C-alpha cells in the first residue's frame, strides 16, 4: 500500500501545498488502492478516474501558479455517498429504480466540495435509499467491513466508512437519518459526525426522511472530520430548513481539545443506553473511554433521559411516513427505471410494475409502514403520537444539557455483525440505531469516535452536543483521540488487518 493512502487529510493537504507531493499523485495512489482492494470491500458503486485526476490536476495547477489554496482540504481525495447529486455521475441511492440516473445538477454539498478543491473519487455504496444498518439492502450487493470481510460495515453509509477503513479514501461524506454516519463509523473504527440538523444543506440529498436527514463528514481522524465539516456546512437559501447561523467553530475546538485538557467539561453518561443488549466488549470499551475522559479532567455524571426508550418506535413511524411520501416520485414517468411500457399497460400499471420491480424489500416495508401510519384514522395514533415523543426527547435533551456539556453513550450496542445474520429479523437490525436515533429526532449534533476493540472489532464512543454546539463534541473527541493514541501507541485504525491486494 502506498504510504500516501495512510496519511490523514490534513497531512495530505499540507504536503500538496508544500509541493512535497502532487494532488495527482495522491489521487492516483487512492485510485490504485481502490483498484487493488475494492473487489473485496465493494465500497464504491462508481469511480470516475479521469474526473478525479482532472480535479487533482487543477489543484496542482493552482499550487504551481502560486494561487491560494481553495480550502484547507484542496487536493484531498474523498468518497461521496451515492445519495448526493453530482452532475456527470450516476446517483443511484443503492436502488434499481435509479440505476443509471444522472442528475442534471449538483447537490450543495457536492458544489462546496468541488469549490474547495476536494477530489471526488466516486460514489459509495449504501443501503437502498439509506434504509438499513448494514449496507446489505443495496441493490448492487453488500459492502464488506475491512476489519473482517465476513461482517457488515454498518449502514446505511457502509460504503463511505469502509472506504476509509480500507484506505481507499481519507475522507468521505455520509448522511445520517437514524445513525447512518455514526453506526458505520463505530463498526469500522472511523470517525463519523452528524452535524446539527439544518447546518449542512440537504439540497441535492435524495430524501429518505426530510425532517431527520443530515449529511456529515466521515474520516479516520477527528481533525480531518472537522476540516471537512467546515467545508460542507453553512447556510443555503435553497434549503428552507437550513439555519442562517455561523458554522460552529469545530476546527478550533479540535485544536483546543488536542491539548488534552478537559478540565471543567461536564460529561453526562446516558443511563438508558446500557445493560441488556449491550455486548460486554462494547460496555468494557465504553467504560474505559469514560475513565480516559475522567483522567483528562472531565467531570463525569450519570444522566437519565427516560424518553430515549421511546425513540426507536417513534423513529419507525416518522421516518417511514416521510419516506412513503418522498419515494412516491419514483414512478417511471420522468426518469429512472420503467417497467411494462409496452403499449399494453396504462400509466398507473407502469407505475405499479416499476415500483414492484425497482424497490427492494426493506424499502417496500417502510413505504407500507409509512403509508399505514399516515392513513386516515391512524394518523393521530401513529404519526401524531410519534411527533409527541419527539417533543419529549427534545425536552430530555434540554434537561440533560442544562446539567452537562455533552452526553455520551456507546454508538451502537454491538460490534459489526456477520453479513446475513440479521437480514431475517428487522427488529434486531433496527436495534443497531438505538443510541443514535434520539439526536436525529431532536436535531442536535452527535458524533462517533473509535474507542477500542472488542474481539478485534472496533467499538465507537458517541458524543452528543446541543444544537449548534457541535464544537463541544469535537473538543471532547479530539482530546480523547489524542489520549487514546498515546496510550495505545498509534491510531486505532492502523490496527485494521491488511487486505489482500489484487493486481
Amino acid at each position: 500500500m502506498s504510504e500516501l493512502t495512510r496519511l490523514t487529510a490534513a497531512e495530505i493537504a499540507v504536503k500538496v501545498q508544500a509541493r512535497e507531493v502532487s494532488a495527482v499523485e495522491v489521487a492516483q495512489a487512492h485510485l490504485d488502492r481502490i483498484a487493488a482492494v475494492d473487489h473485496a470491500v465493494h465500497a464504491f458503486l462508481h469511480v470516475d478516474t479521469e474526473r478525479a485526476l482532472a480535479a487533482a490536476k487543477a489543484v496542482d495547477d493552482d499550487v504551481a501558479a502560486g494561487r491560494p489554496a481553495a480550502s484547507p482540504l484542496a487536493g484531498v481525495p474523498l468518497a461521496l455517498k451515492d445519495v448526493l447529486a453530482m452532475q456527470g455521475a450516476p446517483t443511484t441511492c443503492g436502488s434499481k429504480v435509479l440505476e443509471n440516473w444522472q442528475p442534471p445538477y449538483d447537490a450543495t454539498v457536492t458544489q462546496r466540495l468541488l469549490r474547495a478543491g476536494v477530489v471526488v473519487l466516486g460514489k459509495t455504496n449504501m443501503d437502498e435509499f439509506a434504509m438499513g444498518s448494514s449496507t446489505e439492502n443495496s441493490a448492487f450487493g453488500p459492502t464488506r467491513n475491512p476489519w473482517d470481510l465476513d461482517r457488515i460495515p454498518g449502514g446505511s453509509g457502509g460504503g463511505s466508512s469502509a472506504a476509509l477503513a480500507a484506505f481507499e479514501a481519507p475522507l468521505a461524506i455520509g448522511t445520517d437519518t437514524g445513525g447512518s454516519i455514526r453506526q458505520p463509523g463505530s463498526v469500522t473504527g472511523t470517525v463519523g459526525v452528524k452535524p446539527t440538523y439544518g447546518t449542512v444543506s440537504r439540497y441535492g440529498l435524495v430524501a429518505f426522511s426530510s425532517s431527520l436527514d443530515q449529511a456529515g463528514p466521515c474520516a479516520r481522524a477527528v481533525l480531518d472530520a472537522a476540516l471537512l465539516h467546515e467545508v460542507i456546512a453553512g447556510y443555503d437559501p435553497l434549503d428552507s430548513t437550513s439555519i442562517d447561523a455561523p458554522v460552529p467553530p469545530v476546527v478550533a475546538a479540535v485544536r483546543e481539545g488536542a491539548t488534552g485538557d478537559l478540565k471543567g467539561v461536564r460529561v453526562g453518561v446516558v443511563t438508558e443506553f446500557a445493560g441488556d443488549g449491550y455486548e460486554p466488549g462494547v460496555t468494557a470499551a465504553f467504560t474505559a473511554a469514560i475513565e480516559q475522559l475522567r483522567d483528562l479532567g472531565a467531570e463525569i455524571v450519570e444522566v437519565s433521559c427516560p424518553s430515549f426508550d421511546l425513540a426507536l418506535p417513534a423513529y419507525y413511524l416518522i421516518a417511514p411516513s416521510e419516506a412513503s411520501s418522498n419515494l412516491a416520485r419514483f414512478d417511471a414517468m420522468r426518469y429512472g427505471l420503467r417497467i411494462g411500457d409496452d403499449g399494453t399497460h396504462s400509466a398507473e400499471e407502469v407505475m405499479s410494475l416499476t415500483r414492484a420491480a425497482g424497490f427492494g424489500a426493506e424499502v417496500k416495508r417502510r413505504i407500507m409502514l409509512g403509508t399505514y401510519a399516515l392513513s386516515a384514522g391512524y394518523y393521530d395514533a401513529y404519526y401524531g403520537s410519534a411527533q409527541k415523543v419527539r417533543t419529549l426527547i427534545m425536552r430530555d435533551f434540554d434537561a440533560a444539557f442544562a446539567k452537562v456539556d455533552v452526553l455520551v453513550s456507546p454508538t451502537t450496542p454491538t460490534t459489526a455483525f456477520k453479513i446475513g445474520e440479521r437480514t431475517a429479523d428487522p427488529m434486531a437490525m433496527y436495534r443497531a440505531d438505538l443510541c443514535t436515533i434520539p439526536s436525529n429526532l431532536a436535531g442536535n449534533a452527535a458524533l462517533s469516535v473509535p474507542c477500542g476493540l472488542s474481539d478485534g472489532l472496533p467499538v465507537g464512543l458517541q458524543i452528543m452536543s446541543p444544537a449548534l454546539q457541535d464544537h463541544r463534541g469535537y473538543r471532547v473527541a479530539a482530546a480523547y483521540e489524542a489520549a487514546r493514541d498515546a496510550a495505545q501507541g498509534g491510531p486505532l485504525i492502523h490496527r485494521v488487518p491488511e487486505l489482500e491486494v489484487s493486481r
Partner: protein
Amino acid sequence: MTTPELMDYAEVVDRFDPVLGLEVHVELSTATKMFCGCPTAFGGEPNTQVCPTCLGLPGSLPVVNAVAVESAIRIGLALNCEIAEWCRFARKNYFYPDMPKNFQTSQYDEPIAFNGWLDVTLDDGEVVRVEVERAHMEEDTGKSLHVGGATGRIHGAEHSLLDYNRAGVPLIEIVTKTITGTGARAPEVARAYVSTLRDLLKALDVSDVRMDQGSLRCDANVSLMPSGTTVFGTRTETKNVNSLRSVERAVRYEMTRQAAVLASGGSILQETRHFEEASGTTRGGRRKETSEDYRYFPEPDLVPIAPARDWVEELRGTLPEPPAERRRRVQAEWSLTDLELRDLVNAGALDLVAATVAAGAPPADARSWWVSYLAQQANNRGVELTELPITPTQVARVIALVTDGSLTNKLAREVVDGVLADEGDPDQVVATRGLKVVSDDSALTAAVDEALAAQPDVAVKIRDGKHAAAGAIVGAVMKATNGQADAKRVRQLILDRCGA
C-alpha cells in the same frame, strides 16, 4: 349513454332547497412559481419552464415564494378573513402522472386565511353575504394531453403527453362555507359570487383571473334537501366550469338532474362531475371504489409561516377599494343611473372609463365613447375592450379635441379609427389624415359665397327670411370642405352673408 331526466326548474325549487359550496382556484400572477424560480408565463413551449424542483427530481427542495404569500394574505384580507398567526404547508399524497412528486404541496388544517365573507350583489340589487371558510396556498399540477381516442380524455387515449410548465404555479384555493337559503336564485348567486370574486382579485392585481385560460377555475358543489328540512343531501362536485355563464348553468343543471333522481326514489352518488360546455350538462366521472385517502402530513421540507402582525396590517393598507364600494362611489360621482352603471360594468369598461376620466375627460363623454363606438369596434374585431389598441389617454385627447371644437364627432370617430389602425396618437392622425375642422372664417366665407352663387334661388329664399332653406347651403359647404367644417358656424355665416 342516455340523457338523464330533468325536473322542471320551478318544481325543483318548490320541492327542494339547494345547498351550494364553491371552490375557486386562482393562479397567482407572480413572476415565478410557488417553490422555485421558474417563470409562470402562460403558453410557453411544453417543458421549457421547468427546473429540478418543479420537476420533483430526486434531491430537489422547495423554497416558498414570498410574493405568493403576500398575495395570499392580501386576498385573505380582501375577503375579510382572519390571517393565521402561524401556519404550515402539508403534503397531499396521491399518484398522478402530471404531479411530479406524486404529492401536492398544499395547506390542510392550517390555512393562511380563514373565516371571511364576501358580499355579492345580484342583478336586482339584492345583496347576499357568502361566507368564506378558508383561502389557502398550494401549487398547480402539470397538464396532461391525451392523444388518440375520441374524447381527449385519458380513457381510450393511445398515449399521453405531459407538460410541466404549469407544475408549481402558485394557486390560492378559496372555499366558501355552505351557501343555503338562496332557493331559486342559487345558480345566480353562484355566478354572482364568482363574478364578484373575479373583480376583487382583478382589483388586487394578484391574478389574470382568465377563466378561459384556467387562471380562475371554479368547482361547484351542489346538493338538494327536501324543502323545509335541514339535513344536507349528498353532494356532487362539478369541475370544468370555465366561464361565469357556465357556473350558473352547471348549478342549475345539477339541481334539475339531482331533483329528478331524488324524485324518482334514487339516490345521489357522491362523485366528481364534468361540465360539458356545449350541451350545458354535467357528466359523471369514473367512479372510485373507495374515497381517496390523501394521507396529509406537515411538509417537512418547509418551515412554518408566521406572518408578522405589523406586516399583515401594512398589507391591509395596500388593499384597493372594494369593487362594490367603488361602483357606488363612481355611480354618485358620475351621476349614473343603475342601468348605465350596469352597462358599464357588463361591458368591462369601468376601469377604462375611470382612466379616461383621470386623463381629463368628462365622465359622460368618456362613458359614451367606451360603451358605444369603442365597444362596437371591439365587438367587430372579436376582442375584449381592454384589448383594443387605444389607451384611455388617447380617448381623452380625442374628447378634448371635440370639446374645443377642433373635431366634429364624425371627424373624432375617424381619428379613433386611425389610432386603432396603428397610425399613431390622435394628434398625429389628425395631422396625417388632415382631419382638422376648418375654422378659418375667410376660407369658410369664400365657400359660403360660392355655394350661394351656385344656388341663387335658395339665396333669395334665405334673404326673404326662410332660414330653413339654409340647410341646403350648409350641405354644399360641408361637401366642399370634406366635412371638416363646423356645421353650426357655417350656418351662422350663411345667415350673416344673406343679411338675414
